[in-house]
Each structure stands twice: as structure tokens, then as C-alpha cells.
């Protein structure tokens, strides 16, 4: 078996795989019994989910008062979690859409699970704007539907309405994108399925896909179109989320640089989360040859880049505040760094500005354990970024008489834990029942960095 490797590029997929190997490797986790590791992870995640369900039920039956909020601080954990999860989602779309447009072939090994992650993250995010309402049972009021009240419509000037449209669109498009990408693989699974039942299910889900190239050519087109649409969409979504704050009048919220700042932050946090998950997946599901150190490195590089933008934003924000000459603005930022919530500010800085700098070193980029650790740090840091922006700005705004402090209740913490529970549970189920890697796309790049002499058997 003669294999000639390119001297320019190392192959994206290691271990000299054939098309058949790819199919087998990717499908095997679906066909073998779940491992102990999976059951262990699932039990933990599901328990977390239950904790969340209980706390939310209590919230809905008792009132928002069960959260630590007050007259001065109307939002804290709820919207922090919302923005955090939306941010997480963005990496998925970025990998699947933007890297696709940029023809980054390495994306193929991670885009499927990254997109799945997007969908689950958006689901987690979507919960918070609903449960944070005082009367969630009337949440449908934010939808402009014909009614007997005039008809009374909604306020299209409100960033919350923008959110509602942005999130739902984002979810729909991401889901469609993901599912369209999934169809050929579903067909693959269908055709190798042993059990009649499984064949039925996947037969149903795979839309009668038969690999016809006439279909492929349209397919490629819409994939490109979806990528083209998802790219501005993902930018718009976090821009709109940032407008929740940027359009307000509260010092620390009322900031014009929020849109780019938030988008960068989102990608930053998202990639951290992708890394966290991928590093586990490649170990547990033995995908080392598909998700190679090369992938890990590329993602680390993106983290350095976005992390740089985020750090830049922190600096700019500060400079503008002090330069503006606006008393309230100045104070807000000094208060962030030195006030009662300075601890959260410094957690944010050390996690988001300092820790990613380690990725400048190739050694660290290729050290899976370290990368994993840092990715966790970044996740924490980015959660705190949102907390700092939302909560500490509110605690001390214009009138000193209305200044106050905030501390979360057990319910709020349980809800946050619960959202992670939901996310992980969904992800584990996905890992169990659907191909974690885009079989079709990987096969497409199998020859990458490898002189192909047609000898595969």
C-alpha cells in the first residue's frame, strides 16, 4: 500500500482512511451499545437538567421574586445566561457557514457537531427570555398576531421584539442548515442499517436520498446559499442582542461599540465551547484521526484572534468612557474595576484577556489537556463578561439613592445549572443517535494533502 504524502500540507484526516473506513468509523458509535462513559455523562447531565426543571417550575408557580432581583437590578442571571448561550451558538454557524465560504476544508470534521451545538445552545438561550417574564404564560403577546384588541400589535422599536425575531430566525435557519447537511449521511446510515426499525426511521428522515448527482448539484447550490445567508445572520443576531443594551440609556449599557464587541465575544466563547466539547468527543468516541491536533490548533488560532478583538473592545470601552467626559459613564467603568463587583470584572479580564495569550505558543496549542483547561477558563470568563456588563452597570446608575446590590438566589443558580444540563443532555443524545461527523463532507476532503493514485483497496 503505497501512500505519498504532500510535503506542503499534512492531511486533514489521519490514518490513511478509505471511504468505507470513514463510514464505519463515524457510524460505529451509533451501532454499538452506549459506553459506561456515555451513561455516566448522561446521568450527570440529566440530573442537572432535572434541577433546572424543578427550579423553573418553582419560579413559574411562585414569582420572579424567587430570583435575587430588585427595583434597581431588573436583569442579572436570566439575561446573562441568555446572552451567554446565544454567544455559544455562534461558533457553530461560524464553522459551518463562514469557514465554508472561506473554503476552510478542515471544518468538515467539526462542523456537524458544531452546528448541533448551535441548535442546542439556541434552545437553552431561548428559554431565558421567556422564563424571565413576570407573566410567561402571556409570552405570546410579543408575537404580532391579529387579535381582538384593536388589533393591538407589538412595539417594533423594542430590541426585545428584535430579539424574538432574530432568535427564532436564527434557530430555524441553523436547524435547516444542519438538517440539509445531515440528509446524505442519514441516507448512508439507512443503507447500512441492520435492523428493519432503524432502516424505517432513517428511511423516513433521509427524504429518499439516493446520491443522484442531479440532486447533488442543486444541493451544493443551496448549501452555498444557506452559508451565504447564515453568515450575515449570525452577525445580525448578536448585534441585535447587543442592542438590548446599546439602545438603552443606562451608563455601561449605552455603548456604540457593542455590536462588533459582542459578535467577536460570541465567536470567542463559542470556539472555546466547541473545543471543550470536541476534545471530549475525540477522546470518548475515538475520533482522534478526524479531529486532529491540526483542527485543535486552527481553533486555538481563531480564539487568539477573537480574544484579541474582545480585549481590544475592553480597552476601547474604557478609553471612550474616560475620554467622553460623561460623569456617569466614567464612574460606571471605574466602578466596574474597583467597585463592589470588581471581583467579577477581574475574573473576566484574567480569563478572556490573559489566558488566551498562551495560545501563541505552538506547544500549548498542541497540548490537549492545556487547551481543554484554557477553553474552560474562557467559557467562565465570557459568562462573567455578560454578568459584568448587565448587572454591575445596573447596580449603580444615575441616582445614588436608587443604588443597590445583587446576589443570586439558589433558584437562579439551579436554573443556570439546569441550562447546562439541558445542553449536555441534548448533545449526548445527538452523539448517540446521529453521525457526529459529516461523512459525506469528510469523504470529500479525504484526498486533501495526499497524492491520490486511486489505490484505495
Amino acid at each position, binding site marked *: 500500500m503505497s501512500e505519498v504524502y504532500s510535503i506542503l500540507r499534512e492531511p486533514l484526516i489521519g490514518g490513511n482512511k478509505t471511504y468505507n473506513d470513514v463510514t464505519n468509523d463515524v457510524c460505529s458509535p451509533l451501532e454499538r451499545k452506549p459506553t459506561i462513559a456515555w451513561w455516566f455523562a448522561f446521568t450527570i447531565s440529566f440530573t442537572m437538567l432535572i434541577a433546572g426543571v424543578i427550579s423553573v417550575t418553582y419560579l413559574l408557580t411562585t414569582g420572579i421574586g424567587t430570583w435575587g432581583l430588585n427595583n434597581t437590578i431588573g436583569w442579572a442571571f436570566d439575561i446573562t445566561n441568555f446572552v451567554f448561550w446565544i454567544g455559544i451558538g455562534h461558533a457553530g454557524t461560524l464553522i459551518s457557514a463562514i469557514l465554508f465560504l472561506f473554503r476552510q476544508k478542515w471544518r468538515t470534521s467539526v462542523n456537524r457537531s458544531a452546528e448541533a451545538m448551535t441548535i442546542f445552545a439556541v434552545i437553552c438561550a431561548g428559554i431565558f427570555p421567556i422564563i424571565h417574564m413576570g407573566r410567561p404564560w402571556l409570552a405570546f403577546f410579543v408575537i404580532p398576531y391579529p387579535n381582538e384588541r384593536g388589533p393591538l400589535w407589538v412595539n417594533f422599536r423594542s430590541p426585545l421584539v428584535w430579539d424574538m425575531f432574530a432568535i427564532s*430566525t436564527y434557530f430555524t435557519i441553523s436547524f435547516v442548515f444542519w438538517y440539509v447537511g445531515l440528509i446524505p449521511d442519514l441516507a448512508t446510515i439507512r443503507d447500512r442499517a441492520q435492523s428493519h426499525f432503524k432502516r424505517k426511521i432513517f428511511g423516513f428522515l433521509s*427524504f429518499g436520498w439516493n446520491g443522484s448527482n442531479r440532486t*447533488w448539484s442543486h444541493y451544493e447550490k*443551496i448549501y452555498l446559499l444557506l452559508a451565504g*445567508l447564515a453568515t450575515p445572520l449570525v452577525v445580525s443576531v448578536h448585534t441585535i442582542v447587543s442592542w438590548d443594551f446599546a439602545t438603552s440609556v443606562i451608563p455601561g449599557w449605552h455603548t456604540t461599540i457593542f455590536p462588533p464587541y459582542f459578535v467577536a465575544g460570541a465567536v470567542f466563547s463559542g470556539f472555546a465551547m466547541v473545543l471543550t466539547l470536541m476534545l471530549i468527543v475525540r477522546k470518548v468516541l475515538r475520533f482522534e484521526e478526524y479531529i486532529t491536533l491540526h483542527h485543535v490548533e486552527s481553533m486555538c488560532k481563531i480564539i487568539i484572534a477573537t480574544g484579541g478583538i474582545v480585549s481590544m473592545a475592553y480597552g476601547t470601552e474604557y478609553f471612550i468612557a474616560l475620554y467622553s467626559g460623561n460623569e456617569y459613564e466614567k464612574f460606571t467603568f471605574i466602578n466596574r474595576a474597583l467597585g463592589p463587583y470588581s471581583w467579577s470584572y477581574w475574573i473576566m479580564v484574567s480569563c478572556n484577556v490573559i489566558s488566551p495569550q498562551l495560545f501563541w505558543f505552538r506547544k500549548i496549542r498542541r497540548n490537549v489537556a492545556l487547551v481543554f483547561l484554557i477553553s474552560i477558563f474562557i467559557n467562565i470568563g465570557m459568562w462573567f463578561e455578560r454578568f459584568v456588563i448587565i448587572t454591575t452597570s445596573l447596580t449603580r446608575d444615575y441616582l445614588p439613592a436608587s443604588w443597590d446590590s445583587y446576589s443570586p438566589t439558589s433558584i437562579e443558580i439551579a436554573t443556570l445549572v439546569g441550562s447546562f444540563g439541558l445542553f449536555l443532555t441534548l448533545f449526548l443524545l445527538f452523539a448517540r443517535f446521529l453521525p457526529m461527523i459529516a461523512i459525506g463532507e469528510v469523504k470529500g476532503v479525504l484526498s486533501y494533502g495526499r497524492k491520490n493514485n486511486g489505490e484505495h483497496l
Partner: protein
Amino acid sequence: MSRRLLVTVFEDELDIVNATRTARENRYNIVDVYTPFAVHGLDEAMGLKPSKLGWVCFALGLAGAVAKLWFQIWTSSQSWPVNVGGKPLSSVPAFVPVTFEIMVLFAGVGTVITFFALRKLFPGKKPHIVYEGATNNRFILVLEQSDAAFDLRNVRTMFEPFNLVAMEERIDKEKK
């Protein structure tokens, strides 16, 4: 009516591309090519015209955007005008975000639906697999034996350089 088809099977993307191109150069009537993944260069090898879905996408997006913008202006300034924060009844700049989202939604979802309709794909459709492995590691080129001149030997020799693995004749009952 029924057709006599020739199913030829290959194992590599390059082979199938070249085989298809040669077949077309030799004026063979290509029914279709089945591949486990999107093989680049196959389209022009088959002589397929570039997909028109782009225009559909554009049209849908435009429609969505216009409709939504109109709806926002209508609801806020015609249907029930209210003074919100002293802003004008139709504060168009504030309507841009939602307009954009709806545009993307219409364009995206609309195009995908069109695609499914175009290729008659729908949940639970009975798949028609020409050759075992079509969705795994086999590349299948289907030719139509249209005229009497059609000679299997010529085909075999033509495909020789492309490591032909299998080849079989079929009578196609179903309506293509």
C-alpha cells in the same frame, strides 16, 4: 415505456469524473451519476447547467423584506398608531433589524423547500438505490442503451483506464 440501462460502478472520485467526461465525449446518453458525496467537476463532466436556485433565493428574500417592512410601518402608523417614547409613528430605522431577519428567514427556508420540491424529496420517500454502496463508497454511472449501436465491449474498453469494478444491464420499468 421501459429503457435498457447500463450501470457502471467505480471506486474513486477521479475515476467517476473522468469516466463520465469520456462517456459524454463519446456521446453516450448519461442518465445520472450516483456518488456518496458531492464530487467536484462532476457537474460539468455530466454537462449539467448551474442551478437556478440562486434567483429563487433572491426573489424570496426580497419578498420577505418588503412584506415585513410594510407590515411594520402599517401596524405602527396605520392600524393602531401610538406614541411610543416620543418617536415618530413609523420609525423606519428601528424597523430595519426585523426586516432583515424576515428576509433571511424567507430566503433560507423558501429556497430549501423549493429544492426539495424540485428534486421531489420528502420525508419517508422510498429511496431508489441503483447499486449497493451508492451512499458509502461506490460511484455509479448510469448510461442509457438508446440505439442499436450501443455495444457493451466498447463501453468496457472505454472505461478500462478508470478501474471499472462492475457493470450490469438493467431494464428500467419505472418512469424516470
